């Protein structure tokens, strides 16, 4: 019934299994995913994968990701690392793939539970936002007005981020006032206008934390344009514009994520599962891929830090999460 008859990935026991063909599929075009391209190349070499590919849907539409995954399955790929285009609606294609015994691992962002994805290897978004907010508040001297710019209302992570920042602010016992603007990650234009308007209308802002890509880039550019180093900002991700702003001191730092590691670990895990391993019952579904504040001094080295972290997660992975 299945086309890809070569890989009856379900057979347990240690038989002589071929290595897996692994595809990493992001949710749509986004600079965040670019390190994954190299990760799958490295993983293919390191784990002798039979095939490895990185395919980006041309737009952030669940239908496009579904089509791409379907066609990759038809082309003979054995397992998939996906960033869900829509954290909820991706469950449809995940179930379909899982029903045909394709292992699917969420990378970079989780699929809403209940889900048939085996793992979610991603940043702990709440922790990242909390850490970023804390860093910003600290730089603000523990008081002032903090602006939080974040992502789409339709993204479940947005709520987690908003709550995490709220929590960090609450811990100041009223010394910090929070202004939250959401739903501005649609595109660069929306984010740019909204951030600038917020800066313009709330003159008393002394700190910024952003927990989505477009608002971060927009705020970093705005601070540079204004030439304002009094406003303490922590962003997210490592867009060149943002890194440059960190280096030049317009940002205290940016919350680095580990997309390279996410894809690399996922490729490893898929290959293991394909060769007969199973997820250990009761083990955590979520695997934190690590997060760290990229401060000016770390701009040059943070990538190595993440690689080291990645290797350590991989080396303990089999024992910790799998039974083979």
């Amino acid at each position, binding site marked *: *019934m*299945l*086309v*890809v008859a070569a890989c009856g990935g379900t057979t347990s026991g240690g038989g002589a299994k071929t290595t897996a063909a692994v595809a990493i599929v992001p949710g749509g075009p986004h600079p965040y995913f670019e390190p994954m391209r190299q990760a799958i190349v490295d993983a293919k070499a390191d784990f002798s994968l039979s095939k490895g590919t990185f*395919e*980006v*849907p*041309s*737009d952030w*539409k*669940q*239908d*496009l990701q*579904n*089509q*791409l995954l*379907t*066609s990759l*399955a*038809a*082309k*003979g790929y054995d397992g998939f690392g996906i960033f869900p285009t*829509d*954290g*909820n*609606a*991706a*469950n*449809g294609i*995940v*179930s*379909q793939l899982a*029903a*045909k015994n394709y292992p699917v691992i969420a990378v970079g962002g989780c699929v*809403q*539970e*209940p889900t048939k994805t085996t793992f979610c290897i991603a940043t702990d978004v709440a922790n990242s936002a909390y850490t970023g907010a804390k860093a910003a508040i600290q730089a603000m001297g523990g008081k002032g007005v903090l602006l939080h710019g974040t992502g789409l*209302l*339709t993204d*479940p992570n*947005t*709520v987690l981020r908003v709550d995490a920042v709220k929590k960090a602010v609450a811990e100041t016992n009223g010394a910090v006032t929070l202004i939250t603007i959401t739903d501005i990650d649609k595109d660069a234009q929306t984010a740019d206008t909204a951030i600038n308007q917020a800066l313009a209308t709330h003159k008393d802002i002394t700190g910024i934390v952003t927990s989505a890509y477009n608002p971060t880039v927009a705020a970093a550019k705005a601070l540079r344009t204004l030439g304002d180093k009094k406003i303490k900002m922590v962003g997210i991700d490592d867009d060149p514009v943002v890194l440059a702003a960190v280096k030049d001191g317009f940002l205290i730092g940016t919350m680095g994520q580990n997309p390279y590691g996410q894809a690399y670990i996922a490729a490893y895990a898929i290959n293991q599962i394909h060769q007969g391993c199973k997820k250990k019952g009761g083990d955590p579904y979520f695997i934190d891929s690590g997060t760290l504040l990229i401060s000016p001094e770390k701009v040059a080295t943070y990538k190595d830090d993440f690689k080291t972290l990645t290797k350590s997660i991989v080396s303990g992975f089999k024992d910790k999460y799998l039974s083979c």
Partner: protein
Amino acid sequence: MTGGALLRQVALLALLIVTAGFWIYFSVAASGFTSDFNLFSLLRFAAIQITIGFAQMVALSIGDLNLAVGAIGGATGMIAGWAMQVLGLPPLVAVVFALAAGMLLGFGNGLLITWTRINSFIVTLATASLITGAMLIVTHADPFSRLPDSFTSFSETEVASLPVSNLVLVMLAVGVALFFLYRNLSLGREMLAVGANRRAARMSGLSVDRVVLLTHGISGALAATAGLMAISADHTASPSLGSDWLLASFVAPAIGGTLLSGGLVSVPGTILGGVLLATISNGLLLVGIDNFWITVFLGVVLLLAVVLDRVTRAAGGAVP
């Protein structure tokens, strides 16, 4: 039933041949195209797209547009999710509930159009924002992702061990119903008459406002149907559902030969149009075309289809 029947058959046949041609080509050129998994996914995707197209086609049949197709589909999908997950209603009840809601939203469009006499384009442009906005206000964009298995597995069940989802059957059932609506039901005939010549229809004793109202109700119910199909396939009622349906809703009817000005629809054409699009985007991926270029192909197919349809029609020779 309408004029130029022969030419329309020719155009339909041409569409069928082109679609079949692509199937044969991809079967040969793209390994994996004919795999069960691929066909199942392709047809299920097409079924949902076609149903979205039907919702638009119905509005087009009276010469109106329904830009709120996606908004209604998304909102009713959320309503169904809420009914099943929060209220714990049985799927069947939730489905009826969502269909009724879709029809009511459609009636809302129809009422605004008939009351204000404002162009349907403008009315539904506005109500699309109103409906989506109201949905976001009420749900705060919280998805419903714990839908009953019986509901989600419906879309995954294969019909008679063929690579055909139940959703394809739903789409075909809707198609057959629409076919007979336009062919044999008084309402459908009235819709076409209103679409082709509103004034003459009224002056022949038809109640145009009633037809407009019912048409938008049906369009709303069909959008809801598409929404239900999508949440079954997605396993989740997501607040972003329907946000990208607007333009897609026109493509299948337009390729299938439905006139935007009204009075002429083609149910088989819409089905073929939807299948053709799904086939091309799937097949091109399989033969290794960079998926970023596929949008260009889809645009070209749409343009060629409408131009060819026009040429076939013109070949019949219009009397000046």
